[in-house]
């Protein structure tokens, strides 16, 4: 399935790249620290992908950078300022987040869900304005959903549904977009569709995009900057061709195999050892 995406000029104003960082960051649940004393600087305006084995803390890191989790120690920074000290509503105008597999409210239409992305700009006494309409139309057009705007979100395919959620975060009109495993539960064609969209949002729109992905080949194919995590620490980071290697594969994922250039893009491609 291919969808025609119009290549729209993205918004009117120029976006300022957002710098996200962690300084001596510790995060945990209950008594257990998942991340301890993490220092990390993510490049502004880049498409960053965080990878690592299960339970390495990559989702925890992303959710902390999106202020969905509060740090136990240290700080998460946005343009050098403590992110958790910002008023959450103002932060929602600079940074949007798509959590992992959000539940779709019953019977909500595409446009209705996307329009909720305008929440951080609204007050109960000023519930809608021309700029809100413009942002929603822009988000629908960028994600190719204008034609299905009046359909129920539940009736859409998994790939379309994920685009609706991304459209909601786009309606938020932020400079940074954080996504927690946005391709989980999608078939390959829809995974590619979502990742292509994210890349376009990064390239054309100048948004800083940070995503947690499971698929190493897709991570290498789409990322400008790869962050490799293990046991709550950042093991390595940099451009995919500098970071991804057979050693990384063995050390971080405990997986034997080779890393070869992808025949289509030239990006590193992981080929695990022959099955035992």
């Amino acid at each position, binding site marked *: 399935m291919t969808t025609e995406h119009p290549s729209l000029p993205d918004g009117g104003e120029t976006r300022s790249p957002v710098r996200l960082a962690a300084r001596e960051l510790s995060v945990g649940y209950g008594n257990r620290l998942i991340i301890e004393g993490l220092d990390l600087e993510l490049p502004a305006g880049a498409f960053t992908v965080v990878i690592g084995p299960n339970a390495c803390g990559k989702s925890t890191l992303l959710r902390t950078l999106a202020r969905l989790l509060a740090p136990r120690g240290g700080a998460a920074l946005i343009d050098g300022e403590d992110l958790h000290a910002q008023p959450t509503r103002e932060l929602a105008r600079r940074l949007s987040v798509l959590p992992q597999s*959000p539940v779709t409210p019953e019977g909500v239409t595409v*446009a209705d869900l*996307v329009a909720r992305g305008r929440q951080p700009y609204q007050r109960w*006494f000023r519930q809608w304005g021309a700029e809100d309409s413009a942002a929603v139309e822009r988000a629908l057009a960028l994600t190719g959903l204008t034609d299905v*705007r009046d359909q129920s979100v539940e009736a859409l395919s998994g790939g379309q549904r994920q685009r609706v959620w991304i459209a909601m975060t786009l309606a938020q009109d932020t400079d940074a977009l954080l996504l927690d495993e946005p391709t989980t539960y999608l078939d390959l064609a829809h995974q590619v569709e979502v990742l292509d969209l994210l890349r376009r949002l990064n390239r054309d729109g100048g948004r800083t995009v940070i995503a947690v992905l499971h698929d190493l080949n897709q991570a290498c194919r789409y990322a400008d900057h790869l962050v490799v995590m293990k046991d709550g620490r950042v093991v390595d980071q940099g451009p995919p061709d500098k970071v991804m290697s057979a050693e990384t594969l063995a050390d971080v994922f405990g997986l034997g195999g080779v890393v070869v250039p992808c025949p289509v893009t030239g990006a590193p491609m992981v080929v695990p050892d022959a099955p035992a």
Partner: protein
Amino acid sequence: MRTAMPSYPVAGRSVVSAGPLTFVVRRRSAGVFLLLLALTLVAVVLSLGVGSTFVAPVDVVRALAGDGPFTLVVQDLRLPRIVVALAVGTLLGLSGALLQAVSRNPLASPDVIGVSQGAGFAATIVMSTDLGAAWLGPFALLGGLAAATLVFTLSWRYGLAARRFVLCGIAVALATKALTEIFIVGADAIDGQRAQIWLAGSVAGTGYPEARILLIPLVVLLPVLLWAGRAMDTTALDDEVARGLGVRVTNRRLLLGVVGVVLAALAISQAGAVDFVALVAAQLARRLVRAERPPLACSAVAGGLLTVVADLVARTAFAPVQLPVGVLTAVLGGPYLLWLLVRRTP
């Protein structure tokens, strides 16, 4: 600079502006609201006419204007009680909508999560001791609020989780009800019977003093309700999605929940535990409007309508015996609740 009114991007909704205020209105909600309002008006006129003396609707309207032979019957004898029924129903409808939205549970209502039982327990204590009748309302109000506080406290764990809230409420409701039964069994027969009637919920013998106690807080809370109508839109979203949109989820849920509880406790303090109105009104309104959560204004009117109709039937069906209105709402609400449960089973 905004000159023209922007159209809302969602079908069936309009942007309505008045001075500095700009609201988004579901057109279907507006229609349902007006329909329910018209039905309520009809029910009120009908209820004003029916009783030991029948007054034709035309004469009811004349009597309301202070004209004709039925002014005394209509204005002084029947109207006050109907105003109380209307107010009680409105408050309960609002409460049901708020609590159901906050808990994302169509079964949540003040009589399910313990507010009614808390008020009933306090009222029973007043009636089975030497405290005067003047203490009934204040005690019931405090009892309802105390039960709700207990529910909020018990369900609090790193914030207010929607599911936990309802489960803790059911537990508190059952425990409080059991305590009340113990008191009633221990009380002398007449006090026990009074308590039973109060527990069923009745507007018999009430009038403008009660109505004032109900309506003044409603007017005071109006700005909060206007805010709530909008704030409820994010309660249907995942907590994390809502947080990402800059919503302080816990604060919002707590405030909406507290308003819902206070409105219910007020209504119950004046009329007793009128069951099911909150639950049914909010669900009825939600179905009519076809929204993903109960609409606030429509639930309010639906609650008023249901209570006025139930009271009309309760005081006339078995005349001269007057049933407490709560008996009738329970008789109607029980099957509705069952239908709701059966329908929701996949």
